[in-house]
């Protein structure tokens, strides 16, 4: 097992090196694609970090993404770049703590509802502030570095996210999360502090998402609330993580890569019917692949026993019993 782990790490390292050197051989368009890909892999992995094991569906991805992007837009001429990123992360953390502290003690549905409207709330607040206090809506971002640097930053963030996800999967926190996702009553009896565990993970995931927004912001040059708080982003992240499988380390990445390329193609080919196709695709995934591709592959090829964590395993079970009854 240890040898296998070393092998996986070696392969991952080679792949990372190849990805890091890719910009030297690629044109501007391909680098843009790579930025989008890395960004979505990071977003989907960060989303799954919290929502996968706890099964709390967060619809607030774009709220944090937008907070990151807008912080950069607001502060890029005032502070040096590393401080701007730190400020974005701090704001994202503060918002995540407010949301988490008020909703995570309660049943999951309150959290979903709160996150559902959060992006719209933040967008309206930022718009109101800009119109009434600063008097300008929309800001410019001028950075001294090109798309390659954005790509490398995102690549680093993606690596860190995957490492965190891997590390959490095999320590006490990850185990605690799995118990919470399965049965909160059991978790309480095991002496797990449910609210604190959930809050910590939600905050971590939110900070990563905020940083993705902050790092990607210079790509736009011109930023206004309507652009950075686009709800489609929350939707895309969710569908990617679910397609791949939110409970596997590589699941979100597995969903993000093909779907991102598909979306690129769709938005170029069918700009008007884009969201209809997306919605139908998403419903299809919920019905056909409730546990994601990763869990499906494991079930089909039988490498590992199906694990009861996945969204779908339970339902498969109940379907089996229903069949047996007939």
């Amino acid at each position: 097992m240890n040898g296998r782990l070393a092998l996986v790490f070696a392969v991952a390292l080679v792949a990372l090196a190849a990805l890091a050197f890719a910009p030297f051989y690629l044109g501007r368009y391909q680098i843009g694609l790579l930025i989008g890909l890395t960004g979505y892999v990071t977003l989907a992995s960060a989303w799954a970090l919290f929502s996968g094991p706890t099964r709390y569906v967060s619809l607030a991805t774009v709220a944090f993404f937008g907070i990151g992007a807008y912080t950069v837009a607001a502060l890029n001429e005032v502070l040096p770049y590393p401080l701007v990123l730190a400020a974005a992360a701090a704001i994202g953390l503060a918002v995540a703590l407010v949301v988490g502290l008020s909703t995570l003690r309660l049943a999951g549905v309150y959290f979903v509802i709160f996150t559902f409207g959060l992006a719209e709330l933040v967008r309206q607040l930022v718009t109101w502030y800009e119109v009434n206090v600063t008097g300008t809506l929309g800001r410019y971002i001028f950075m001294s570095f090109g798309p390659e640097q954005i790509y490398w930053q995102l690549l680093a963030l993606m690596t860190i996210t995957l490492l965190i996800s891997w590390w959490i999967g095999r320590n006490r926190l990850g185990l605690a999360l799995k118990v919470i996702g399965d049965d909160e009553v059991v978790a309480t009896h095991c002496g797990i502090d449910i609210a604190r565990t959930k809050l910590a993970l939600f905050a971590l995931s939110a900070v990563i998402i905020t940083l993705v927004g902050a790092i990607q912001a210079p790509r736009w040059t011109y930023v206004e609330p309507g652009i950075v708080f686009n709800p489609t982003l929350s939707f895309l992240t969710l569908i990617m993580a679910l397609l791949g499988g939110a409970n596997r380390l590589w699941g979100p990445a597995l969903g993000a890569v093909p779907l991102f390329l598909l979306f690129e193609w769709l938005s170029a080919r069918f700009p008007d019917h884009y969201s209809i196709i997306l919605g139908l695709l998403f419903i299809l995934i919920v019905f056909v692949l409730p546990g994601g591709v990763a869990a499906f592959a494991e079930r089909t090829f039988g490498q590992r026993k199906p694990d009861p964590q996945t969204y779908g395993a339970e339902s498969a079970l109940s379907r089996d019993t229903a069949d047996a009854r007939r």
Partner: protein
Amino acid sequence: MLTTAIIAGLVLGGTYALVAMGLTLQYGIARIMNLAYGETMIAAAFAAFVLKNALGLNPMAGLLLVVPAGFAFGYAIYGVMMRPLVARAGDRSALEIDSILATFGLLFVIQGVLLVLFGSNYMSYSYLNIPVSILGANIAANRLLALGLALTIGLTLYGLLRYTRWGTAIRAVAVAPQSAVLVGIDVNRAARFAFALGGALAAAGGVVISMYQTFTATSGVTFTMKALIVVIMGGVGNLLGALSAGLILGMVETFVATYLEPGLTLAATYAIFLALLLWRPQGLFGKATR
């Protein structure tokens, strides 16, 4: 000024109450958390708009067409999309997650269809736009009609659920779905009916909204959000709770818009929601058990 604000608040609140009643039926009885609820409303608003502009049909007559259509839509959606999810869900939280995800997809489908058909512009039509004087304040007749409709539909529904045998069966499902089966209630049929009724109420709410407000293809999300907050405020499955909570929310929003700043209405809504979550998550009128 004050009278105008109070009446405008009641009108808005009445509409919210009407809309939230549908959602509380869908969530409280059918156990489906429907995130595409606001989109159903907006679709109904567009239907009223088309009937008015293309066929010259007045919205009151439109209501008679659109509400049954909303019922049929809800009935079909439950049969095609929700029933399989209910069948495969092991417990309540699994169904909640599945229904949230499926209706989130549905939200984008309906919104996409509306965008293709009507574009992203703000729409409105003029109906009964004549001032009526009440207690010295001038109110458009269409707003008064909207309030009257909301109260009539809402109270009729409450009466039906409270005082008929059929309504009692539906409420039994809301309180104890497992035990309802024991006394001979077809839970599946009741759930499907409640979901369809929710669709009819969403359609009614959409038509009522279109009588006095502008709307766009993408404004469904805010309506869903507000309806959800009203549902939680009133206590899940509680119709009178939804009615009072809707009126409160409408008043608060109108007062914030009139005396503070129109751009902060959603923030006010959220402040109420936050306070509620910290203080009484079971709702103002709900019991401690969920």
